């Protein structure tokens, strides 16, 4: 069924199709439509789940953590300040190895106040042990929610599905809503069977207590638990590839963790994530028509960082540009930092100049003209000494 819906609605439909048994989310602009719609689905009997209104995001993550630890499939969603307030709960959920799926509608953090978009809110949760995916379109939001449950429940790790606030959350797009029957075939019911007794972080799990990393009776195994969690993250890319392949077979569309767009023989490659990818595809098409050897790498998966895939996609390029909507203040763009780490710490990888453009903070538009300007700058200017090139800080310009 094709419907013209917003990103928020796509997220809610995606959740509906996955049959979560407990849905608990606290409203926050620009995410509010997600819990509203899910509460409607439950009230109308379309979704046989318990929708719970709580008093804060701290409570929302607490409720779904308790419910997931009790052995049922859960869903939540938040943005910005709400995500920041969940912070300790995020560590607790991942350390407890709970397959929670949470949609993040990316919005800047205060201060100054801003209700539009940038990705610093979820990127600054990168060390919480949650998998993170950034979506380009509303269709991808829906499909990624469905895939996220498969990934989360395979690895026993929580997953964030991120979309840009306003640009996706409030923008109508045509979305193909898959049949329930097909989704049921793709995503079987969550069926944890092992009951954990004693001193425990989860009552029900898909594996016995001995595999959790800590004995249920003492505190002493912290490091082993982290090691196991890290090892599970190490399987994430392969799991995502396999889950996506199966999705493609069933539904006829898919989303690799790292996607190359017109990268064949490209000397200059630009790396983009989120809703700006769509804009960038158009810019690459235009510049290709003009005879430039440029390509795009879409980075969908951010945690764990798909370093081998990104190394393969960026190997042998003359120059790389990263255009991103986030900032580690006083340092540089967060994607830039990770890409630089992935390339320049690898023995087989020769040094490639990387241009780090920070753009669109606080919802400023990253226009095709701005993107083209950044790509041309990367082609023609010597590698920058600065860690950040500010794109569009002054209208239409690149500044230091």
């Amino acid at each position, binding site marked *: 069924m094709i419907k013209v819906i917003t990103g928020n609605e796509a997220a809610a439909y995606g959740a509906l199709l996955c049959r979560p048994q407990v849905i608990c989310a606290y409203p926050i602009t620009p995410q509010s439509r997600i819990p509203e719609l899910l509460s409607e689905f439950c009230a109308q009997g379309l979704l046989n789940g*318990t929708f719970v209104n709580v*008093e804060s995001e*701290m409570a929302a993550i607490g409720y779904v*953590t*308790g419910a997931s630890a009790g052995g049922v499939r859960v869903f939540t969603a938040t943005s910005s300040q709400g995500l920041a307030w969940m912070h300790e709960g995020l560590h607790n959920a991942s350390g407890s190895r709970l397959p929670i799926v949470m949609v993040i509608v990316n919005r800047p953090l205060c201060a100054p106040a801003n209700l539009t978009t940038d990705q610093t809110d979820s990127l600054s949760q990168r060390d919480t042990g949650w998998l993170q995916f950034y979506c380009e379109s509303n269709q991808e939001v829906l499909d990624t929610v469905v895939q996220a449950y498969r990934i989360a429940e395979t690895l026993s790790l929580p997953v964030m599905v991120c979309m840009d606030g306003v640009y996706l959350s409030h923008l109508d797009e045509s979305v193909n809503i898959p049949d329930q029957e097909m989704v049921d075939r793709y995503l079987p019911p969550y069926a944890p069977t092992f009951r954990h007794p004693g*001193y*425990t972080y989860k*009552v*029900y799990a898909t594996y016995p207590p001995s595999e959790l990393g800590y004995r249920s009776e003492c505190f002493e195994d912290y490091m082993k638990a982290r090691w196991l969690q890290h090892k599970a993250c190490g399987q994430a890319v392969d799991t995502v590839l396999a889950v996506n392949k199966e999705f493609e077979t069933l539904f006829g569309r898919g989303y690799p963790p790292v996607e190359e767009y017109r990268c064949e023989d490209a000397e200059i490659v630009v790396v983009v994530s989120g809703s700006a990818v769509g804009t960038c595809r158009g810019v690459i098409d235009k510049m290709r028509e003009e005879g430039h050897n440029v390509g795009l790498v879409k980075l969908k998966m951010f945690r764990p960082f798909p370093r081998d895939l990104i190394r393969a996609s960026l190997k042998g390029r003359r120059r790389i540009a990263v255009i991103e909507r986030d900032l580690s203040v006083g340092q540089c763009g967060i994607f830039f930092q990770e890409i630089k780490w992935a390339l320049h710490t690898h023995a087989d990888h020769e040094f490639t100049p990387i241009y780090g453009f920070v753009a669109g903070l606080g919802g400023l538009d990253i226009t095709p003209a701005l993107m083209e300007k950044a790509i041309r700058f990367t082609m023609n200017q010597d590698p920058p000494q600065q860690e950040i090139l500010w794109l569009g800080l002054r209208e239409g310009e690149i500044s230091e």
Partner: protein
Amino acid sequence: MNNTPEIPAILSSEEYIARTEGGQGACPGCGLALALRLFAKAMGPNVIMVIPPGCTPVTVMSPRFNAAFTVFVALFGSTAVFASGLKTALSIRGEDETHVVGWGGDGATFDIGFQALSGAAERNDDIIYVCCDNEAYQNTGNQRSSATPWGGITSTNPPPARKMERKKDITLIMAHHHIPYAATATIAYPDDLMNKVKIAKEMRGFRFLHLLAPCPTGWRFPADRTIEISRMAVQTHIFPLFEIRHGTDLTMNLRPERSPVDAYLGTQKRYQGLDASQIRDIQRQVDRKWERLQWLSSYGKEVQ
């Protein structure tokens, strides 16, 4: 007492904490360990305790886990809501007979976890929440909480900066969330305590128990006086025993003839150095609260 099941003549011989030679990790004379022991006996099997950090995990974990119930480890800010989510999940899984108990200290209840507690009570989530109150953050070394009484010395209220704010009336606050059951109890009255646990256990919805647990280490009294001090707290009217049903129906479970607060204060070094006028202030606070409870317990009764 009204509507209470029969009082247990003797305590159940079943033990739920400190079951083997490992013992338990609380300080000598700990009121909390005894409160937990009595509570667990009254609850019986099929209980999951949701517990944030504090004295209780130390009690059940040291030197190793030694309790008969499952302890689900919670975060301070969300203990009650973890319990709510867990209960919902177990009900969905067809395990509705499992009791989920949120068990926090006064810090987790009065202070850092209060928002989640209030939210769970407002939703009337189907859990029992117990505040085991030792009147300061005892596990971290006796820092002030909003349950620390007026005039108390803590490690963050060193003399002469003793606490000059009154303790929250947490049981009334919780009752005013219109929950089915809220009650106070303390270890010197084990029958009353276990009765209230059993009443709570038979009900559905959000049930709140406020257990006073004297703390020899923080309050600074000899370890053999715990029960005596618990009893004195009731006899001085400092910690009245009452229960409230449906937010309004208050019953005084015991109306002991009031003994003056001086003797109680004198047992604990945390009150050392209070002057006569300060002790009079405490007596006035205690008397006013007692009068208010009497008024609440009689309110509406004469017209029925």
